[in-house]
């Protein structure tokens, strides 16, 4: 197997993790990863060095955006409960899933790339094709939105001042 393919192979576990958190649906996530791998393998000639991981996340993010656009055009009914509900998971796990679901897409990407995938702000800026300042504001909005959601969604645990 070529170095390129081996390097791509090494990104699969992280791509699956990222896609799972993005879509919160195990099958959909693996579909997305599969499409990403196909696209990457076909586009080997387009990869001119640089960080392969960043390149892979970029492909995945673009494919996901296309997928969401296609979904938006199609008036299908989406299940309210996602297919990969955290079975038997503590309430907190369900909460974070729901909270992520409320985010605007690019905010969710920014937050997950930083928090889950451990990428730098600069790398996220490269993936999203925006200045670092924009990444920072997406991150800030995502965190603020999640905080609001979690506090509003769990009145029983709301801090009493």
């Amino acid at each position, binding site marked *: *197997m070529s170095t390129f*393919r081996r390097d*791509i*192979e090494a990104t*699969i*576990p*992280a791509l*699956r*993790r990222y896609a*799972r*958190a993005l879509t919160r649906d195990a099958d959909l996530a*693996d579909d997305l*990863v*599969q499409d990403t*791998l*196909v696209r990457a*393998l*076909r586009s080997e000639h387009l990869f001119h060095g640089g960080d392969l991981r960043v390149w892979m996340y970029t492909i995945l993010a673009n494919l996901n955006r296309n997928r969401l656009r296609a979904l938006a055009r199609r008036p299908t009914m989406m299940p309210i409960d996602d297919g990969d509900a*955290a079975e038997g*998971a503590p309430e*907190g*796990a369900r*909460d*974070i*899933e729901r*909270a*992520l679901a409320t985010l605007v897409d690019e905010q969710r990407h920014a*937050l*997950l790339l*930083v*928090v*889950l995938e451990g990428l*730098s*702000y600069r790398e996220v800026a490269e993936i999203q094709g925006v200045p670092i300042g924009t990444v*920072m504001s997406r*991150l*800030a909005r995502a*965190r603020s939105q*999640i*905080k609001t959601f*979690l506090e509003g969604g769990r009145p029983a645990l709301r801090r009493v001042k």
Partner: protein
Amino acid sequence: MTDHDKPVTDEELHAYVDGVVPDDRQEAVATFLAANPDAATLVAAWRAQADAIRARYGAVADEPVPARLQLDRIIAGDILATRRGSRPFRIAAAAVVLLAFAGGAGAGWTLRGAPDHAPSGFDQMTAQALDAYRLYVVEVRHPVEVPGAEAAHLRQWLSKRVGYELRIPDLSALGLKLVGGRLLPGPTGSAAAFYMYENAAGERYTVYCAKAGDGETALRFKTGEQYAAVTWVDDNIGYVVSGPSDRDKLEKVAKNIYDQVDKGAEKKG
């Protein structure tokens, strides 16, 4: 004003949560948080979010990668998908080029003095075989009913159902492993045996065989855009060997199968 004295920004609070505050600002941020409980609460909440996200999804990266995401399979599948892409298989199949089998042939391989026309129903059988190929070759989890590990049982069972003594060739010399087999509808309401081989690159070849009625034919090579087949009738049994449309490879596989089946028939007779 030195770096230490600059006011702490919101960006820095995020950087603090993400562990990327530069060394020369660590102390300033820590001091700021100690003096501002509201900011400290906010930072704690953000950190809790990050922990929750990692707790929920972090382990996905430790799961075994499912078969369909293995690169060998994706590469093999992509070749098929690309070739399948532009138009439906049936149209391509209808436009197959029918070629007489010539060149590079050993004794008994070409022109066995057989009639050049196929027995009636044989074209239909070829179409069925190619349909089966197309259907099952992309199947990752359940391509067969009986796995190749149970080859003896597979042979026994299928022989009984198709009504003649079946041979399942060993193609390990070509790097092909028997995946297994299944029973399928045959050409005229009868039963057909279908078995599948796979190489290390995930390329799959299938053999579809059933009683074909009459006589025997020369080997023919049929090719569509995405798949190809070599077909023949021998000893009243029709064979369709299907695979990726790499003619050289497919011919090699078919010839090997033909030789093994033929040898078996001689032994029997």
